[in-house]
Each structure stands twice: as C-alpha cells, then as structure tokens.
C-alpha cells in the first residue's frame, strides 16, 4: 500500500551487502561540567534493522536520539547518519537531515488546534510535497495506522494510543530512512503499548530502519529484536 522506500544507497554500497545507517564512534556527551550523559558510546545500526535502546530514565537513551537528529552535538566523537556526518554538518543542512528522519515522542507532540489530517499536512508542506500528493499520502498512512475514520478529529479527542499512532503516521509522512521513537509507549497502558510496538515492527518490516528508546525491558524483550542496554550513559550489554 505504501510506495516503496526510496533508494538511498548507491549500487556499489548495495553490492557490498551490508551497510550502516547509524554509526556512532566514541561518542561522549557531558552537560555542564561533570554531568556525563554519554560515555564512549559506539553504536552501529544497519539499514533495515530494528534496534531497541533500553535503560532506566537518565541512562542516555534520549540523548542518543537527540544526537542522531542533531538537536544536540556530542562533546566528542563522530556520528554518521545515512553516510552523513551530523557532527560536522552545517547548521543550514540540519533541516534537510531531519527531512530524511521520522521522529516519535513520548508526549506525541501533536498540534492541539489542528485536526489529525492537518497535523500530517504540516509535514507535507514543510518537505515541499504538492498538496494532492500530501493528502493522498496522509490518507494512506492513516489507513496504515488504522485511523482513517478519525482524520477530521482534533487530537485531544483521541485516546493516547490513537494519538501516538497519529504521531507515527506523521513521522512517516516524509518517507524517512530512519524512524526514531523516544519512549513511544511511555504514556500508554500495556495493551495500547503492545499495539504501538506492533505497528512500529510492521513499519520496520516494510524496510524502514527503526530505533526505539524505552525503559520498558519487557516490551523490548517481547519484541525480540536487537536490544542495546544503557546504564549511566554507557552501553553495558547487548542482546542478542
């Protein structure tokens, strides 16, 4: 139902078989003088992979996501996203980086005064998608997340799970190469959380690389995907 993901690698890269979507090399992030949010983080995520970042709050999960979409810069270390070094990236290139990413937050971050449809249309306009195409894509994505019948409703009239599905649909509007989800189930009860995770895995199955940060170890375990455990800013374990 969705258009095929756009090709983002040269044939040469594809022929080499396996290639990285996100590469973090010796990344440190220190806030102020001595608050170490990340310590020597090395993380490599391949194209098409689905990775869970697990850890209690304050472990550095969100920081990793924020570094990837260049909301913040690391204190030291290098980060490559889809082959581009985001640390050395010029400021005016940042919007273009973000247009290749989809981001989902714990608090949904939907605009309260606009309908579900309009929330999705905002992205279409920002990435410069023509109106008819944007409308069509929004309709497709709302069908994908099972909310096409609520397109004209205001977000706060939807349940938390529904709002998060709208947020996911919005994150997919620009056909991202990576979907970043920061505690996407943090505000949801267990049943709705499982729904949302299922949706995210479904999106991954369609070819989008996915990185999910969660403090819910059980959820990560149930998903059965590669899981990276963080503790006090360090990667302490990886599973499997």
């Amino acid at each position, binding site marked *: 139902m969705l258009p095929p993901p756009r090709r983002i690698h040269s044939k040469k890269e594809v022929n080499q078989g396996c290639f990285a979507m996100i590469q973090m090399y010796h990344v440190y992030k220190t806030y102020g003088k001595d608050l170490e949010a990340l310590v020597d983080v090395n993380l490599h995520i391949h194209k098409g992979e689905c990775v869970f970042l697990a850890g209690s709050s304050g472990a550095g999960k969100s920081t990793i996501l924020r570094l990837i979409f260049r909301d913040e810069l690391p204190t030291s270390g290098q980060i490559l996203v889809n082959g581009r070094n985001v640390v050395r990236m010029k400021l*005016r290139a940042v*919007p273009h980086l*973000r247009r290749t990413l989809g981001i989902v937050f714990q608090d949904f*971050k939907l*605009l309260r005064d606009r309908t579900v449809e309009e929330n999705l249309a*905002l992205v279409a306009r920002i990435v410069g998608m023509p109106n008819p195409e944007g409308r069509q894509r929004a309709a497709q994505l709302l069908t994908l997340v099972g909310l096409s019948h609520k397109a004209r409703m205001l977000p706060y009239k939807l349940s938390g799970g529904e709002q998060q599905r709208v947020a996911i649909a919005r994150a997919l509007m620009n056909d991202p190469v990576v979907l970043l989800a920061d505690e996407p189930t943090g505000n949801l009860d267990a049943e709705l959380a499982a729904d949302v995770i299922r949706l995210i895995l479904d999106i991954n199955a369609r070819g989008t690389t996915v990185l999910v940060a969660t403090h819910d170890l059980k959820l990560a375990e149930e998903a059965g995907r590669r899981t990276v455990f963080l503790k006090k800013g360090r990667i302490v374990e990886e599973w499997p």
Partner: protein
Amino acid sequence: MLKKLKQIPADAVVNLIRSGWGGLASIATIGVSFLIIGIFLILVLQFNALVAEWREQFQLSVFLEDKITPKQLEILEKRIQNEAAVKSVTFITKEQALATFRRELKGQESLLEGLGDNPLPASFQLKIREGSQSPAALERLSVFLRRLEGVEDIQYGHEWIERMSSAARVTKLLGLIIGSVLTLGSALIVSNTIRLAVYTRAAEIEIMRFVGATKAYIRAPFLVEGMLQGSLGALLAMGLLFAAYRFIAPTFKLASPLLSTAADRGLLEPSMIAALVGGGAAIGALGSSLAVSRFLKT
C-alpha cells in the same frame, strides 16, 4: 518560491484567527498602548498649534512722533521692512488708532469727549518672524528701532513673551521626557505581548523544527503575524480615537478654546497615523522575531 512567499501572509492570517481570543487580547493590549501614545500626541500637537497661533498673532508696536514728516515716514518704513526679523508691517494712522480705540470702548464713548485733539500716536504694527520671537532678539530689535528718527516708543508684551518662552521650554522638555517614557513603555508592552503569543506556540515551533522546517520557514509567518498584530493594534487605537473624538468633540468645542482648534484642524495628520501604524508593525515584527529566535537554535 513565489507560491511559498504568497503563502506566508495567508498562513499568518490563519494563525491569527486560530489564536482566537488570545490573539484578540494581544491586539487589544497593543491597541491600548497606542491609544495612550495617540492621546499624548494629540495633546502635544494641540499645544503646539496653540503656541503657533499665539506667535502668529504676536505684534510689536512702533509708535511715531506726531511731528514726523512724510519723507521721514517713508524712510522709516523702508528701514523697518528691511529688518530680517520683520515679517510684515502695517501702518496705522492717528485716525485709525482713534477709531479702533473707540470701538474697544464701545458704550463708554463719552470718556473720549473731553479729549479734544486726538492724543493717540500713529504707529507701525510689526509682525515678527517666529525665529526672532525670543526675548533677547526682541530686546535687540526694540533697542535698534528706538534709535531711529521719528520713533517715539516701542511696545510689546515684554514680560509676557519671557514667561511664554520659558513655559514653552519647560513644556517641550516635559513632553520629550513623558513622550520617550510612553514610547518605550508601549514598545515593551507590544513586544512582550507578541512574545507571549509566540511562547504559547513553542510546541508548534519545536514540531516544525523536528520535521525539518528551515529557520526562515518557521520565522516568516510569525514575523508577518507580529506585524499584523502590531499594526492592527495601532489601527484599533486610531479608530477608537476618532470615534471618541466624533462623539465627544461637539461638547468640547463649546467648553474649551484649546480643543476647539483641534476641532478645526482635524485630529492627527495622515503621515502621523501612517507612522504609528508602521511603528506598530515594526515593533510587532521585532518582538515576534526575537521571541521565535529563542526557540530556534537549529
């Protein structure tokens, strides 16, 4: 690109409508600020007009000796006319002076009966250029005139001019101080009001950043919206002023000569209205731009 640019004002209007009561409240706040400035401006303008009128009517009298010859009179008139400070000269004959006096004494003409010969001197009535109406300049002029042949005496409201010019100085200074304080205060109120309006939309700015909107793309509608709010507020104030004026002016016209000149002159000149509305737009743009910048690190 052009299509995008055209979209900006439309977006701004839509955003303004979306902001609903909040948007109206900020426009009203801005309007009140401009109302205060407007009232102050009108008072200053009226006062200036009044002073100008007084200055316009100001006259210096050169009284002539009775024995002055026509030849001397001619020379004297020429010399007076050649003075840079003199705007115009009118000659008043003894008979005209008496006639005027008689008119002023209306009802009490009997007082004049015992006079016999006309005791009033002929005179030149001088209108003085505004620039030369300072007490010092007038003093210099009168000393010069007094020395001329055929001149009996010089008269002008000596003390009155002195008091008037010092009063004008004080009022000017006071007006400048009050005016700057008011302007500064209004600028702060307007930019803060718009800032608050932007802050309530911090979430929207964040979302736009995260989905890859450029700074300019985020900033432009806010800028236009700020300009709109600022200028609409100023327009609202002007509208209120004119409405109040039309409503109240007839009563004032009867009550106070100060305001009757206002009634004749109209309220504010178009250029001033344009300046106020433009100022509103500028402050609005600045305020919103500063506010948005806070949320736009990348």
